[in-house]
Structure formats: structure tokens, C-alpha cells
């Protein structure tokens, strides 16, 4: 007893003398700046590599020269500026959006297995695109409409999911369940539409699998406003996510309105997901693995886990696409068969599925 009293006395005495004696920080907090900088540097390196990859391969030195407008070959300059830079930017930003969306959803559902595909937003977006391609008059199928359709589909789905899970209140588990349900139904309808209209498969496939191939500045124009709005919103909701993570009773005791906070965070996650899916399609597993790795590195505090999730997911998507682009193959692309990189979504699923299994087995223990 005496010893404890002394601890308390010194604990209090330390306050005024040092003025701002900070508590010992956790390992995660200490490592956070280094991890953020390290993964950030990795993203830049991967981006440089990514720009160089494609049907025409350009070495990183030439990429840098082209970006600075000093490329030896004017064709290289044109390829880098017109085709590769937007594709890389889109991969990077879409990856970050999916990663942040996953981190938000894992916090909201208090479930480490949650991911953007869990909310049904991806599947809903894809369904909207496929339905449009199947039913809209041929003349109207302009490429620019599709991303907006994916957005509308995604946001409609999340509203439906939320409404279905509502039983006098929302609940993380019910939310996850109705997300899985609605997502499965959307995917099933998508498949039925495809079976009925098999010749569309080529143009629809990249939405379902998810790919950054052929993404140029028009697509970037659609993506960046969403990213600019939704990424800061997601990062700023870290404080609310932390409180919500303590359970509804504690969160309410701390002055939060858990129902309202959950709905708001869910909407932000849906915005992030829909924005990304609208441009790159339903790339899977990025939003599951990114946040999981990030939390492993810096702990569960959302103020660190959220930004790192975004950066880690961007790095994973870029790395996966670097590999996918390196494995260039014949790919049915619209009406013609073109040489193109493997769709990155196929690779993330290939690598992500075993990782998911590993996670589930770990959680079981």
C-alpha cells in the first residue's frame, strides 16, 4: 500500500515540474512515423516502376526523364504522360481509398475480417454497370457514364444494407451480415445478366475482376474529386472511430451518438469504396489486407491505423499491378483481343484468398 501511495505522489509531482511530461508511448506510436515514411517511400518507388511497365517497357531513368520533359525518345514522353501517369495515379489513389474504407469498416463492425466487399458496395456498383451495359440502348453506352453508374449503384446498395440491418437500432454484426447478403444477391444478378448476354463478358469482366489497365486522364478526372472529398473525411473520422470501437455503451457515455456515428462512418466508407470501384472495378482483398497489416504495425488506435492503412493498401495495389503488368498476356479486351497486363484484381484475389484463410485460422485460435 505504501509503495503505491508513493508512486501516486511522484506521478503527480512530475506534472508541474516538467509541465508536459508525456506518458510512455506505445511501441506502435513510436514506430508510426517511421512506418508511414517507409511505406510512403515504397509507394513512390513502386510508382516509378509501375509507370515504366506495359506493352512498351521504359526503364525508371527514362521514366524520370520523361516526367521532367527531357526524355530522349518523344514517344516515351507521350506514353508516360498520356497513358502511364494517370494509370499509376489511379492505382495509387484507388488503393488508398480501398485501404481506408477497409480500415473504417473493420472499426465500425469491430471485426478484423470486414472489408469493402463486405458492405455490398462493390457488388452493387458492378451490378449497376452490368445492368446498364445489358439494357441501355447501344448508342448510350458511353464509357464516361459507367463510373457514375457504379457510384450510384454502390451508394444505393449501402442504403439498402443499412435499412435491412436496422431493427430499432443498428448493430455491427447485423450490418456485416446484411452486407454479405445484399452483396451476394447483387453478384448473383450480375452473373445471371452475363449469362443472358454472353457477348458483353469482355467489356464487363474488368469491372468484376478489377483492373487499372487502360485507365487514362478521363478516369482520373472522375476519381480525384471523390478522393479529395472522401479521403480527408475518412482520416478525420479516426477520433470518432476510436470512441465507437469501445462499444455503444461506452461511446454514448463519452458523449458520442453511436448510431449516428456508425451511419456516418459507414457512409464515408461507402463513398471511398464506390469512388474506387467506379474507376478500377471491384478489386478485392486490398481493403482487407491493407488495414490488417497496418494495425499489426502500429496498433489499433485509428489515428495511426487509418492513414497507414491507406498507404499500405496503395503500396499493395501498386505492387500487385507491377507484377500483373510484368505478366503481360493476351487478354480479351472489348471486341478485339489485345496484349494487356493481367487484371490486377485477379492477382489480388489469388494472393488475398490464402491470406484471408490465414487470418481466419488465426482468429479462430
Amino acid at each position: 500500500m505504501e509503495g503505491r501511495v508513493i508512486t501516486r505522489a511522484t506521478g503527480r509531482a512530475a506534472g508541474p515540474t516538467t509541465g508536459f511530461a508525456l506518458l510512455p508511448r506505445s511501441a506502435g506510436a513510436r514506430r508510426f512515423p517511421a512506418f508511414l515514411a517507409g511505406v510512403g517511400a515504397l509507394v513512390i518507388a513502386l510508382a516509378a516502376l509501375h509507370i515504366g511497365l506495359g506493352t512498351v517497357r521504359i526503364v525508371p531513368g527514362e521514366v524520370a526523364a520523361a516526367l521532367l520533359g527531357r526524355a530522349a525518345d518523344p514517344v516515351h514522353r507521350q506514353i508516360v504522360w498520356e497513358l502511364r501517369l494517370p494509370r499509376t495515379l489511379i492505382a495509387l489513389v484507388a488503393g488508398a481509398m480501398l485501404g481506408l474504407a477497409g480500415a473504417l469498416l473493420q472499426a465500425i463492425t469491430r471485426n478484423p475480417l470486414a472489408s469493402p466487399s463486405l458492405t455490398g458496395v462493390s457488388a452493387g456498383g458492378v451490378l449497376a454497370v452490368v445492368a446498364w451495359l445489358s439494357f441501355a440502348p447501344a448508342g448510350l453506352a458511353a464509357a464516361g457514364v459507367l463510373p457514375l453508374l457504379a457510384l450510384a449503384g454502390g451508394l444505393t446498395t449501402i442504403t439498402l444494407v443499412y435499412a435491412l440491418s436496422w431493427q430499432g437500432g443498428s448493430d455491427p454484426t447485423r450490418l456485416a451480415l446484411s452486407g454479405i447478403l445484399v452483396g451476394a444477391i447483387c453478384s448473383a444478378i450480375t452473373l445471371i445478366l452475363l449469362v443472358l448476354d454472353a457477348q458483353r463478358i469482355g467489356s464487363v469482366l474488368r469491372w468484376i475482376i478489377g483492373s487499372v489497365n487502360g485507365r487514362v486522364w478521363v478516369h482520373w478526372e472522375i476519381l480525384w474529386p471523390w478522393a479529395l472529398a472522401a479521403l480527408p473525411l475518412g482520416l478525420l473520422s479516426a477520433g470518432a472511430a476510436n470512441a465507437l470501437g469501445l462499444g455503444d455503451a461506452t461511446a454514448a457515455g463519452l458523449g458520442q451518438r453511436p448510431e449516428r456515428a456508425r451511419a456516418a462512418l459507414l457512409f464515408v466508407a461507402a463513398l471511398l469504396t464506390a469512388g474506387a470501384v467506379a474507376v478500377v472495378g471491384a478489386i478485392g482483398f486490398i481493403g482487407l489486407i491493407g488495414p490488417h497489416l497496418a494495425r499489426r504495425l502500429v496498433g489499433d488506435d485509428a489515428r495511426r491505423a487509418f492513414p497507414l492503412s491507406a498507404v499500405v493498401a496503395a503500396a499493395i495495389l501498386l505492387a500487385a499491378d507491377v507484377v500483373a503488368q510484368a505478366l503481360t498476356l493476351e487478354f480479351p479486351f472489348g471486341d478485339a483481343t489485345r496484349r494487356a497486363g493481367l487484371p490486377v484484381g485477379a492477382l489480388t484475389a489469388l494472393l488475398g484468398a490464402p491470406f484471408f484463410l490465414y487470418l481466419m485460422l488465426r482468429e479462430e485460435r
Partner: protein
Amino acid sequence: MSTIGRNGRDGTTLAALRAAEVRVGYGERAVLDGLELDIAPGTVTAVVGPNGSGKSTLLKTLARLLRPDAGAVFLDGAEIASLPTAAVARRLAVLPQGPTAPGGLTVGELVEQGRYPHAGPLRMLRMQDHEAIRTALALTDMTTYAARPLDGLSGGERQRAWIALALAQDTPTLLLDEPTTFLDIGHQLEVLDLIRRLNRERGLTIVLVLHDLNQAARYAERLVVLDRGRVVADGAPQDVLTTALLAEVFGVRARILADPESGAPLCLPYAVVGRD
């Protein structure tokens, strides 16, 4: 805090917390029905009663975590449902029963959440926030655990971290649901001593749910006994704890002595008689 603000219109002391004709339940079934309770400022009140008698429900209702179907709860005279929830959180902290947190969160990060209602929109911690966190950790003897993740703690250490969270909220009123569960006897007494100290030195109003009747009698000046959602006894421990009440409410035959240490009543249950 002015004396005028403390007094009601009729000149009596205004309750820190008041439940008026409260009916609460889950779904159709009312757990508490027409319950009346006044908590005077600066007092320690223990709520006791058998499992399922509605203690947690009462505490959650007082803390506006449950909304009554009928009746109302008043905090310092104002209806709690009409106050902004962040304003309530600056005046009233609650430790729910069996709280959970992400296991990777550290003690320091958990306790920091106590500043949630005080912090600005960007949730940056200011000087007074750090001070409150440090004090809360020191009071619960958790300073050295600040950097440890919660899933690496014993049940008792975790419970103390949660108490520290409520203390970091730095409120004049504290509601604690079974704050001594998981604690060894030494830490139980330490938490109860802390509660007494917060009450005596800082004038905190404290309502706590306890299962140990002897501890309740020793540390609280008032016992409220709940049974099947009704207040069946309410008053000073020596008036409330009777052999008849113990038989009636808890279904035990007991002997009641005076604690040689404190003079508080001491129950020695020796047989189960069962309840109707």
C-alpha cells in the same frame, strides 16, 4: 457552483441525479416500472440486488444510455434527454458492466478516450487533457501500464484501465457498474478507497453497483436495494441490511453484526432459504 443553482424552487437541495417515474425495458418487457430515485450531490450510493434485478438497467438509464419509455431522468435539475450528449459526458461519466475494446489498444490510448467530450473537433490533446489522463492513470495505479496493449493485461488490470477511462472524463458525477469485478481483494479495497477519496476530497457524486454487501455497507452512505426492478429498501446501511431483507431479497439466512473496524453492519450468510 452557486448555492442557488444547488437549490430547487422549494428550497430543498437539488438532486445531482433524479429518476422520476421511470419505466425502462428491452422491447415489450419493462424491467423498471415507475422507479423513483434521488441522488444527492456529493454522496456515495451503492445499488445492490440479486442478478437480473435491474441494477445495470438503472445505471444505464441514469446515464442516458437507455431511454425511458415513460418518466424522465434529471441531471442537476435539467432533463438529461434534452441536454447535448457531449455536455452530459462532461458532467457524468459511466463505467458500463463488461466493457470491451480492441485488444491492440494500449491502456494510455484507452484512457485518452476519456477526453473525447472535452476535446475540440480535431481531437488534439491539450495540456489539461494530458494532465487529466496522467491523473487518472496515477489514481488507478496504471501509469506504468500506459504503453501496454489491453489484450496483454490481467482481468483486474484491464478493469482498472477502464476505471481510469471514466476518471479521465473528469466529471463531478461518476456511475460505476461493478467496478470491483475481476479485482483481487487488495485492489478491490484500493478501488473502493479511491472512490471514497474522490468523494471526500473532490466532492464527487458516486453511484456504484456492488455485489459485496459488506463492502457496500462500509463504503457507501446509502444503500438502494433493487429486487425485480423495484426499490425494496433505501437508506443508511444499518437501517437497510436486516435479516428479513436478506431472506426476502437474496434468499439467504444471515447473521448481522457490527463491523468492529467501522461500525458498519456486517452480514454473515450461513444458509440458503430460497425465494418464492
